[in-house]
Every structure is written in structure tokens, then in C-alpha cells.
């Protein structure tokens, strides 16, 4: 590239960023990351604690069943396969959605939504971008750990890990979309905490972070397959561990895309209808 071409390229890039309104999204991501990591030790402890405490509990459980109980295999998983599932799924559990739907609900309830409604940026997306930054950082760390692990064990594949993190990020978007639709209940009831809590409990059970979904009875398969939750953790883990074929993975990405489009429309309409009930309390 000649020196004269370089500024022109930068100018083109700036135009594209402006046209796609990327600048505020990038700035929201940056501030979201700075905000989440303002207290670095707290952030690290939260991530490490959230990852390793459940992993330790599951390890003890599988050890008891396989080594003390003498089981050879459970649902087609050997002891080592189960541990590989547990440790890989933990990486994707860290990427799955946070509690920003609760934040939205609290903003509606307490009236602080007013601060964002008047900015020329969509409030639902703004809150998402702000909360996404630390998740993207964690996704990067998970990816690095996964790729490093692929050098030492055949259980995980590096390229598959990269694709699986992509699917987990799609799951993160779906999780927030569902939460932001539920949060609109606060426009009507002033509170949506219980519904969001129930949603989170169902997600924990059906996303595959507690145990592989293939352990469910075969005739229950329709239950978890009829929700998008398996795309958050179970799907990415299965693909990263080579238990899903490329075709199954592509199908999962297609399903995730359909969920994102459908839920995107629902988010738009639920907020458009509900905002009329907003009371902007306080102040």
C-alpha cells in the first residue's frame, strides 16, 4: 500500500463505521469492558470462581460414580469422556448469557431506563453491548485455553473449538433476547424477577452445563431440542469434542440463526408495545 493510499483507506473505514453506526457499539463495548474490570481482582475471582467451583463439584460426582461406584460408562460416556465434557462445557458456560436482562428489568422498574431512552441508540442493544464486552473477553480466554488444550489431548480440536465459540456467542445473543422480552413484563407488573429466575433455572438444566443432555431419556429429547438452550453449552461442547459432525454443527448454526431472527422481531415488538406503559418513576 502506498503512503497516499493509507489515509484514503482509513477514511473509507471511518465511513463504513459511521454508516453501520459501529462507533457507538465499539465505544459501548470498550466502556463495558472497562466497567466490568474496574476492580480487576474482583473480576478475576468472579470468573475463576464461577468456572472452577462447579467443575470441582462435578469432578467429585463423576469420580464417585465411576471410581467408587464402579460404573464403566454412563449414557455412553466413559470417565475420561465425562471429564472432558465437564471441563470443555465450563469454558462455554462462561460465555453464555449474563444477568443483563435483570438489569433491564430493574431499569424499567426504577425508572433509570429514562437515562437511555433519550439517547440516539437502541436501549436494548446498548445494554447488551455494555454487558457483552466482559463475555467476549472470557470467550477469548476460553478459546485460548481450548486451543492450548488441543496441543496436549486429542479430545479437543483447535479449529472446532474456534467454531464452537462462535456458536456459544450466538447462544449468548439468544439468551439476552429471551431475557429482554421477559423483562418487558416489568412494564405491566413492575416486576419480572421471578419469571427471569425461573428462566435461568430452566436454562441451567437444559443448556448442558450441569450434565450432558444425552443423559436425558431418549423420549425427552424433544423437550430440550424444542428450546434454543442446548445451543449455549451442550452444542458447542459436543462439536469441540468431536461428538457432533460438521453437518450437525452447520444445522445447529442454522437453527441458532433462525432463533436470533425470530427473537429479534419479538424483542422489537414487545418493546414497542410495552414502552407505552412506561411510567418513568422517580426524579
Amino acid at each position, binding site marked *: 500500500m502506498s503512503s497516499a493510499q493509507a489515509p484514503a483507506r482509513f477514511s473509507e473505514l471511518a465511513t463504513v463505521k459511521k454508516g453501520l453506526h459501529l462507533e457507538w457499539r465499539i*465505544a459501548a463495548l470498550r*466502556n463495558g469492558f472497562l466497567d466490568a474490570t474496574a476492580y480487576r481482582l474482583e473480576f478475576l475471582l468472579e470468573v475463576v470462581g464461577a468456572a472452577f467451583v462447579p467443575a470441582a463439584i462435578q469432578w467429585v460426582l463423576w469420580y464417585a460414580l465411576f471410581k467408587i461406584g464402579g460404573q464403566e460408562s454412563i449414557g455412553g460416556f466413559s470417565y475420561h469422556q465425562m471429564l472432558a465434557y465437564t471441563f470443555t462445557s465450563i469454558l462455554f458456560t462462561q460465555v453464555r448469557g449474563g444477568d443483563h436482562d435483570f438489569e433491564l428489568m430493574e431499569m424499567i422498574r426504577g425508572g433509570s431506563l*429514562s437515562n437511555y431512552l*433519550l*439517547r*440516539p441508540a437502541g436501549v436494548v442493544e446498548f445494554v447488551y453491548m455494555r454487558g457483552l464486552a466482559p463475555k467476549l473477553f472470557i470467550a477469548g480466554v476460553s478459546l485460548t485455553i481450548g486451543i492450548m488444550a488441543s496441543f496436549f489431548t486429542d479430545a479437543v480440536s483447535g479449529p472446532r473449538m474456534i467454531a464452537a465459540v462462535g456458536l456459544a456467542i450466538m447462544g449468548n445473543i439468544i439468551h439476552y433476547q429471551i431475557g429482554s422480552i421477559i423483562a418487558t413484563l416489568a412494564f405491566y407488573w413492575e416486576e419480572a424477577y421471578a419469571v427471569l429466575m425461573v428462566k435461568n433455572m430452566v436454562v441451567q438444566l437444559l443448556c448442558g452445563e450441569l450434565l450432558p443432555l444425552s443423559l436425558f431419556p431418549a423420549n425427552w429429547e424433544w423437550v430440550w431440542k424444542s428450546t434454543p438452550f442446548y445451543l449455549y453449552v451442550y452444542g458447542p461442547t459436543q462439536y469441540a469434542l468431536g461428538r457432533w459432525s460438521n453437518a450437525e454443527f452447520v444445522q445447529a448454526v442454522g437453527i441458532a440463526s433462525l432463533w436470533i431472527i425470530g427473537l429479534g422481531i419479538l424483542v422489537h415488538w414487545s418493546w414497542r408495545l410495552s414502552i*407505552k406503559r*412506561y411510567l*418513568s418513576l422517580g*426524579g
Partner: protein
Amino acid sequence: MSKTAPIISVKNVRRVFRSPQKAEGFKSTIGLLLNPKFTEHVALKEVSFTIEPGSFVGLIGANGAGKTTLLKILAGLIPPSSGEASVMGLKPFDRTMEFRHTISLVMGQKAQLWWDLPAVDAFDLLKAIYEIPEAKYRERLDTLSELLDVKRLLQTQIRRLSLGERMKMELIGALLHWPKVIFLDEPTIGLDGLAAEKLRDFLKTFNQKEKATIILTSHNMDDIERLCSRVLILKTGEMIFDGAPSKLTREGECRLRVRLKEAFKVEELAALTGAPVASISVEGATPDGEGAANTTAESSSGSAEGASGDDSDGEAKVLTYYFETTKDSVLKVLQPLMTKATILDMGIEEQSLESVIQRIYSEGSVRPGAHV
């Protein structure tokens, strides 16, 4: 838009809030679950007015008068139940991108900045949201932070700033995009006298220099008196006054202050001078006769006697009496007073906006002929 066309127009705006009612006790809690009862509260009753571009308008009223509700409707946060509101020819509740780019709302009690980040990070985000060119952003940030004297604090975490400094940062955040219409809801709340004065100076300069239309609500009459050329007064959702602050005081109206050696009941002074009881107030006595306070006629009928010129230590206590009167009637009050009392000190004061507003709040009316 022509130069004289109103920038804000409000026509018969009414806003009703519906809320569940719960009496005390367990039974009513169960009742609320099974058969909730709602009451309707009319926050605004058919309010109409227009505002010209570049105006600085004060919106005042007692708590619950409907000021903030009106601001929220004009800023597009909530829709009116009926009637029409328009800002720059746009319907506020549509909140079009054009509308959001040109207005700003500052609520003294609602923080918009990021608690754990320095203000400059939040301003950078606002620059991106409002698509402010870098050079303009730098120029505006310099101007605003210098005017408000917070330049040295831009890199400090918001949570470490004082209330006044935070309020100034909020104001910078609200003005970075150079809005044409600014709604300020009690911007000087919690500020000390000096900080409030600086903020007022700044708002005045911004209004005059940038020709921005500003609507301000405040319980601080200094804000209104020093900044606003026009005042709108709301009382329980109704507009009871619309005009210049100077029109709130009657021609020739004043306040006669007299310090008397003897203590009198307000009724005695009214009988003696012929002044209405409601126009007399006493300073220096509380209803139980202790300490210094400013009491109105209603609460002080027994207080002057209660004080009876003695404080708790038994020493003589001199009370100050105020007569709301006119310059022409001052002598009529003083002459009979001098026959029965010893006047230690006296003076004639202009009526303060504060006292006029207090009178309007309590009486619920303004003088006949005031522009409503």
C-alpha cells in the same frame, strides 16, 4: 420553522396515572392479590402553553404539582393521556432520531454517568452515540469543563467526585451534543451556594450564546429569579400562572418589617393596625415559644404571646413582625402601631419571589388579570 414559531407547543395536555391502593395489614395484602383496587391520579389537567425558541422558562410548583410529569412528556419519556405536545414540530413520544439528537434532559436525582469510570470515558461514548466530530468534541469538552471548572476532574472516577462535581459532569454529558432544547429538572439540588451560582452562570451563558431553549424546574427560587424571563406555575396539575416573574408581585407591594419591644398576638396587631391577619407574620418565635423561626399568621396566633418577649433563660426576646402591605399603606400601619408599641427597628423590603410563590401555593391563585 420561522423564527417566531413556537419551539414547544402544548395543547390541552392531560396525564392520568393509575395505581393500586393497599391499606395496612395482612387482610388488605390478600385483598390486593385477589381483588386489586386502583385509583386514578390526574397529574396534569388540560395544560396549554407555547414557548418561543431561545427562551429560558421556569416551571415551578409544590411537590406533586405535575412539573416533572410535564417535563417527561415534553422529553418523550411518557405520552400524554390526552392532548397534544410538540417539540420542534415533532411529537416527543415518537422519539425519532432527529428528536433525540436535539434535546437533552437532566434530572438532578438520576445519574447518567458510569459510576466506576472516569467522566471522560462516558463522554467518549456520548461522542460516538451522537456522532460528534473529534475536533468539535474536544472544543466543546474544553469549553464546558472550563466553564464549570471541572477540567482537572475529567480523569477521576465518578464515584469519587462530590455531589456538586457529579452534577456538573452530568450537565456536560447532557450538553456535549449541543442540544437545541434542554429540560432541567432541579439541576441545583444538593449543591452548595457557590456551586449552584456557578451552574446558574453557566446556564445563562449557554442560553444566551447558543440560543438554546431551556425549561427549568426548581424549588430554589434563586434559580428562577436569576435565570428565567418567564415562569409557569403549576398547582395540582393546573397551570395557574404564565408570565414574567415580575408580574407575580403586585404594583407597589412591599413588606414592612418592624421589631417591637413588646410581644403581641397577630390578632391584636391586626385589630390595632387594620391589616388582615393573613398578611402578618412573626419571626423569632415558635409555636411553643422557643428559638427563632419564621411563623405564618395561622401558626403564630398564640406564639407571640407564648414567647411573651421571654426566652427560656428568662431574658427578654425581641420579635420581628412582617406586614405584607403596599408602599401607600405603610404609614397607616405604622401610626396606630406607634401608639401602643415601642418600635426598635423597622424597614421596608421588596417582596421576595420566594414569599410570593409560597403565598400562591397556599392560596392557589394569582392576582386577577395575570396571564394564565
